[in-house]
């Protein structure tokens, strides 16, 4: 495959990542809205003498959060933005440090493949029969988050390696932790 094709694929991948970032932002808006609704229902409406209970809010918020966390972490793989110890990789001579980084990425890809596999089994084995306690929806809706995110993690990690190779950059210098809080 030529460099041009690879660059096009990377661009497409980054479009997907951008869309997912937007999506998890919307996810946080949903979480804010439903948890705030829960507070309103408990205090304001009860105080006003209107009694509606909303047991579904917590469940929605928790499930949306699981998706957001896993997808967010998957996006982080594209530019190596997950929290890692960079100290040793940068302290050793460059060729060794780069080799360590590539080894780490290869191990991660193998682990993500395992996660896709066991995550999918988990969907099939448990998700089909299990219903959420309040809303009674099949838990497959939640459990798909792991194999889906792990799949994106594989693509993004490959994307990171491809970017380093075609732009001839030091793999250790691409991305890095944008912000830790």
């Amino acid at each position, binding site marked *: 495959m030529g460099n041009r094709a690879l660059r096009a694929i990377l661009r497409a991948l980054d479009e997907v990542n951008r869309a997912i*970032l*937007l999506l*998890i*932002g*919307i*996810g*946080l*808006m949903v*979480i*804010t809205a439903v*948890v*705030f609704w*829960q*507070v309103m229902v408990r*205090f304001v409406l009860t105080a006003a003498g209107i009694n509606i209970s909303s047991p579904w809010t*917590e469940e929605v*918020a*928790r*499930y949306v*959060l*699981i998706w*957001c*966390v*896993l*997808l*967010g*972490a998957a*996006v*982080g793989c594209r530019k190596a*933005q*997950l*929290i*890692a*110890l*960079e*100290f*040793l*990789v940068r302290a050793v001579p460059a060729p060794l440090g780069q080799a*360590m*980084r590539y*080894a*780490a990425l290869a*191990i*991660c890809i193998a*682990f993500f493949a*395992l*996660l896709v596999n*066991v*995550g999918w*089994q*988990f969907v099939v*084995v*448990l998700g089909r029969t299990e219903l959420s306690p309040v809303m009674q929806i099949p838990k497959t809706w*939640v*459990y798909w988050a*792991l194999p889906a995110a792990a799949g994106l993690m594989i693509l993004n990690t490959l994307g990171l390696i491809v970017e380093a190779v075609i732009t001839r950059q030091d793999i250790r210098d691409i991305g890095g932790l944008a*912000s*830790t*809080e």
Partner: protein
Amino acid sequence: MAMLLIYLLVLFGIGVPIAFALGIAPLAFLMERRLPLISIPQVVFDAMDSFVLMAVPLYVLAGRLMMTGGVAQRLVEFAVAIVGFVRGGLAAATVLTCMIFATISGSSAATAAAVGSTLVPEMERKRYPRPYAAAVVASSGELGVIIPPSVPMIIYAVIAEVSISDLFLAGVLPGALIGLVLILVNITVCSVNGYGERVEFELRAYLANLVRAAGRAVLALLLPFIILGGIYGGFFTPTEAAVVAVVYALVLSVGIYRTIAPSALPKIFSEAMFTSAVVMVIVGFAFVFAYALALMQAPQQIAAAIRGFSSDPLVFLLLVNLFLFVVGMFMETFAAIIILAPVLAPVAIQLGIDPIHFGLIMIVNLAIGMVTPPVGVNLFVACGIARISMEQLIRPLSIHLAALIVCMIIITYVPWISLALVQ
């Protein structure tokens, strides 16, 4: 168990993200025991399916909104109005602003960034050496995680299964202690070295200025009362208080101060969620690691080993202080809490140490890790804002660091400071 730790350290060493290293290290053990690997998704989902953890992205978001929403600026003016008249007043005001901002923000880096970006240029204008200004911001920024709300406290509470409200409450007096000590240190250092300008004190002007600044900051100053009052009045859970803080910050910054355009909101929400996801995914996989440790009965073995060495709680705490200090130099705070809390907290409880007090010791100890080189998030933030190198920061930082260490020792060996407010 030794093998498990060796795998983990090797994976950390070659730079595997901490979240995944925690999931990969126990694989060999799980397969050797012929345990079905499907337990991995099970454990990950159990860990993340938590209403308590939801407080993390919400406090991160509230902090972001307050930071970009011009709230920090008003708090700075208020703090300067209070302590600005003394020699070194701007440095003292930096500490005070961090204390106030910490009651809204749950993170050190956000606190240091919000306060530093306004006050470092201001200190420079008033003839403070730039490295000194950066050192003040780096050291007082750690109050962000000690004064509630605090994201690391939420993570500790989830892992060690203690009450978040109690842990938050336990942070109030230690945070006040550290803040006061830092203010005194700054006034002393600035007086001795002649940093900053002397300001003529005139009572009438002082009061007029104070009233004006308080008026401008009053809406922002209400928020801590809503958050903490709501939690301790029993009105909200910490997660619900977080959402109230978000909505309040939205109303303030978008509606009243109009410092955030509605069109900027999607980006702020996305970034807050992304930052939180990067931390929370570690929690998910840390439970896989903890699951393997529990199967090996590792906490019991470690506890037995420590008791074999000494069963004196004071000796144990001293070892914990030293160990966490060294860990804090190299490791990121969340990772350290997530890995070490499940191992150390049970031992502490067996030795008769209050789990809330122990949690606070861990937080204070690791918060110092944010200010110790070579790896310390507050140092990176402060150096970035002041445009100086880490080497330039070390000398002015050392006296602040010494003060923080003294505070840590006091907080460790005087449990009353942490537990006085906790019923």
